[in-house]
């Protein structure tokens, strides 16, 4: 039987740097293949070749799809050939309705019969009926008239999947689909994906999360440095082997937090913290929390539980009204802007480094120092260039960031290095309390370990840390104590002893759902 997809000796380089050196593998029809590799291993380049972003001819080697040479020149052609991709950043029109998003780019839209007439009329009734038929056939309960912007990330993903099904995709590529989903939504997605498999759709699943891969995939292709180094049958391998192949060196399972006892009064004391948004809806309510110097406190909770909002409310960047008492060092604080909070010694590292954290087109040095320019201005607010250069090289060394020179744009760095720059920006301020929102999202295992080391080192130096993460193993490996939020309220405050994911999920999801083994 000819394989559905045959990738033969693919190589592609960008300006002398090889992104893919020699990639060869096959995918059989109906299989689910996971593609894993550290950041920079070449996963996205490979996906861009398969989905037509990099047109045929711009790379070496051949791709055969359904026995024929694939020569697509655009994502549209790839889709018509039967290959659909669901990107990490979803490609939907947020202001249009579900039905429009599903059917807008159809070949013969709306009128039902082929037409060469450019002035086609939109038959709204038809459109909505068609869309709801499509959604029903897949078992998705989404109103076709709803605006996409009002849906959750998980629902938007369903729409992307429905669109792929509608285009009769034979190969569906999912690029990190769960990075923005809560555990419950991940389960829902997996149900859909299993269903897709039953329908004979072949899946390529890209993810950093090995638990997901082992739950879903039949086979794993490991990419390292632009080469497909290993193909593993899921039934005959284990996580340790996959990780070993990915990084090319063994990684030890370890915990990063050291021994620590709470001494003296807490550094940060939160009492009855609440937050209402601009429309008066409650985002957070009745949160009591103390953090001692040198302590790493993890904040767990499902998507929408108020994890990020807690941090944002604390530093005064969450729109709306805050209530309750916050004390730093026993003194009540009432800052209303991030600057005041920062001056008091609190630093906040946002979760979305591309959107909220970094100046992607500007230099690494610029990004490092933009938050602490006050400390190195001379007369007339001129910036002392040598002081700045000193600080940049110190941070570079301390955080092991790899870059050629400090004017190099941040967007040219790998995800892990970008994340380190983001952290370094706030670490440079020597904060007393550091709030981290998803400090390791979407970066490879090696860089994660380095960031954990850094966090642990900060704690040893007496910084109080609050860490929000959607990856429970991360919190379990990193934190002295874990608090769980649900629907804006603090439902558990647990020392990290004999804790496991299941126990945390009981609190995060509310008791009933947690009984069945939850995949995270």
């Amino acid at each position, binding site marked *: 039987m000819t394989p559905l997809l045959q990738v033969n000796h693919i190589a592609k380089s960008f300006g002398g740097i090889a992104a893919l050196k020699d990639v060869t593998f096959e995918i059989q029809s109906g299989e689910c293949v996971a593609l894993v590799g550290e950041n920079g291993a070449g996963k996205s380049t490979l996906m861009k070749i398969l989905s037509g972003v990099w047109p045929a001819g711009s790379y070496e080697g051949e791709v055969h799809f359904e026995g024929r040479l694939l020569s697509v020149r655009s994502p549209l052609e790839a889709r018509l050939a039967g290959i659909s991709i669901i990107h990490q950043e979803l490609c939907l029109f947020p202001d249009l309705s579900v039905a429009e998003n599903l059917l807008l780019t159809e070949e013969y839209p709306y009128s039902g019969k082929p037409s060469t007439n450019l002035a086609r009329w939109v038959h709204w009734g038809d459109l909505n009926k068609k869309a709801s038929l499509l959604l029903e056939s897949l078992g998705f309960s989404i109103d076709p008239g709803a605006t996409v912007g009002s849906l959750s990330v998980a629902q938007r993903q369903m729409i992307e999947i429905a669109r792929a099904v509608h285009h009769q995709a034979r190969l569906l590529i999912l690029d990190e689909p769960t990075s923005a989903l809560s555990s419950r939504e991940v389960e829902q997605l997996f149900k859909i994906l299993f269903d897709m498999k039953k329908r004979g759709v072949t899946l390529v699943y890209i993810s950093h999360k090995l638990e997901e891969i082992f739950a879903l995939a039949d086979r794993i292709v490991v990419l390292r440095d632009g080469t497909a180094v290993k193909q593993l049958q899921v039934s005959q391998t284990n996580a340790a082997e996959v990780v070993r192949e990915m990084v090319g060196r063994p990684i030890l399972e370890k915990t990063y937090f050291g021994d620590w006892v709470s001494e003296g009064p807490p550094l940060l004391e939160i009492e009855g913290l609440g937050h209402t948004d601009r429309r008066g809806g409650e985002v957070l309510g009745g949160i009591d929390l103390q953090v001692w110097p040198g302590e790493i406190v993890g904040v767990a909770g499902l998507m929408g539980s108020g994890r990020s909002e807690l941090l944002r409310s604390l530093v005064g*960047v969450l729109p709306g009204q805050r209530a309750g008492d916050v004390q730093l060092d026993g003194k009540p604080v009432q800052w209303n802007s*991030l*600057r005041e909070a*920062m001056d008091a010694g609190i630093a*906040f590292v*946002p979760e979305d480094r591309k*959107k*909220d*954290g*970094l*100046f*992607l*087109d*500007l230099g690494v040095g*610029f990004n490092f*120092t*933009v*938050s602490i*320019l*006050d400390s190195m*201005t001379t007369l*007339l*607010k*001129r*910036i002392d*260039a*040598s002081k700045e*250069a000193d600080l940049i090289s110190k941070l570079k060394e301390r955080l092991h960031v790899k870059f050629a020179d400090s*004017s*190099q744009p941040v967007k040219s760095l790998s995800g892990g290095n970008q994340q380190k720059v983001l952290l370094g*920006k706030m670490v440079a301020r020597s904060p007393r309390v550091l709030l981290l929102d998803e400090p390791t999202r979407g970066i490879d295992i090696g860089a994660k370990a380095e960031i954990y080391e850094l966090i642990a080192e900060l704690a040893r130096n007496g910084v109080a840390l609050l860490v929000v993460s959607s990856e429970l193993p991360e919190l379990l490996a990193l934190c002295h104590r874990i608090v769980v939020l649900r629907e804006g309220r603090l439902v558990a405050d647990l020392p990290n002893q004999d804790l496991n994911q299941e126990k945390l999920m009981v609190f995060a999801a509310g008791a009933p759902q947690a009984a069945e083994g939850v995949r995270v």
Partner: protein
Amino acid sequence: MSMAESLRWVVLPVRGLGKRVSISQWVPLIALLVCAVWFNYLSDGAFLTSRNLSNLSRQVCVNLTLAVGMTVVILTSGIDLSVGSVLALSAMIAAISQFHGDWASLGALGAVGSIALALGVGGACGAVTGVAVSRLNITPFIVTLGMMVICRGLTLIVSGAQAVAPIGDSLGSLSSGYLPPWPSFALITLLGIALISGQWWAVRQGTIRAAIATKRSLLCIAACGLAVHTFCGYRGIPAMVFIAAFCAASVWVVLSFTRFGRFVYAIGGNREAAELSGVPVRRVLGLVYCLMGALAGLGGVLDLARVNGAVPSAGELAELDAIAAVVIGGTSLMGGAGGVAGTLMGVLLMGVLNNGMSLVGISEHYQKVFKGLVIVAAVYLDLRSKRK
């Protein structure tokens, strides 16, 4: 081979000098040289005479003053459409103080008073815009569109739709005054030496590479040579050029070497990130528009001095010339990238086109068409080189 391709090949050898220099920086300079040589050929050598170049330098002063302010605004990914009207309003109020207020008879003191008045009016208009943009979060395009109409209306109201002229000699000397040739020569030489040694000092500090400093030094020598030819061959440095150049230099220093400058780039680069990095976004934005207003006021003074009076229609479409110069100079309309050096090139290119086309007798109607094409072409080339 397309035009952009061929241009790329022409400039490619220069690239080796500094690794990270994008071609986009060179496009305005090369276009400038090509235009200058071409116009000189068509005008039988009249274009590159000291006298014509000196006139050209005075013609570009108002646009330079506006364009450096516009550079800062556009760097924050904003836009200011009101500068032409603010210019007219400040010029009109300064003219009224001179003519009706009889400050003309106060001599130099009166002139200083009128200039301060114009700066104050411009700054106040800018402050209003700044508050609307930064506090009320209205899109700059809309705020300044409204401001443009409001200020034009106010100009017509205060002037009664009449021209106000003449102004006092002291204020007029801004246009007619010159620093004599020999002191001018000394000043240009000193400036050149200062700039070049500054480059090499930076090399010793390790902030830039020697290759870049070499290239900049050569450019600096060429520019000084041209300045000597222009100014020392004909009367000296015009007072207007002094003022405009001082503005450009100050803004350049602020953008390159101060915290405020960094904040401007940060806001344009990623506003969300700037807010979460503790950049006082609102205050910086407010100041940026205030600065733009004050510079428009100064532009009004220069225009007033040049025309020796104020007309209600002064500065019409000046905002578009300023924006065009900034964009030709390679500053991104999305904000966060670009700077004053490029804007200077853009202003000079626009000036050379205006002056040269008039000199060789191209009718004003065709000039407009041609200028429009140049703007679009410049942005296209810029985009292309960035996409690589």
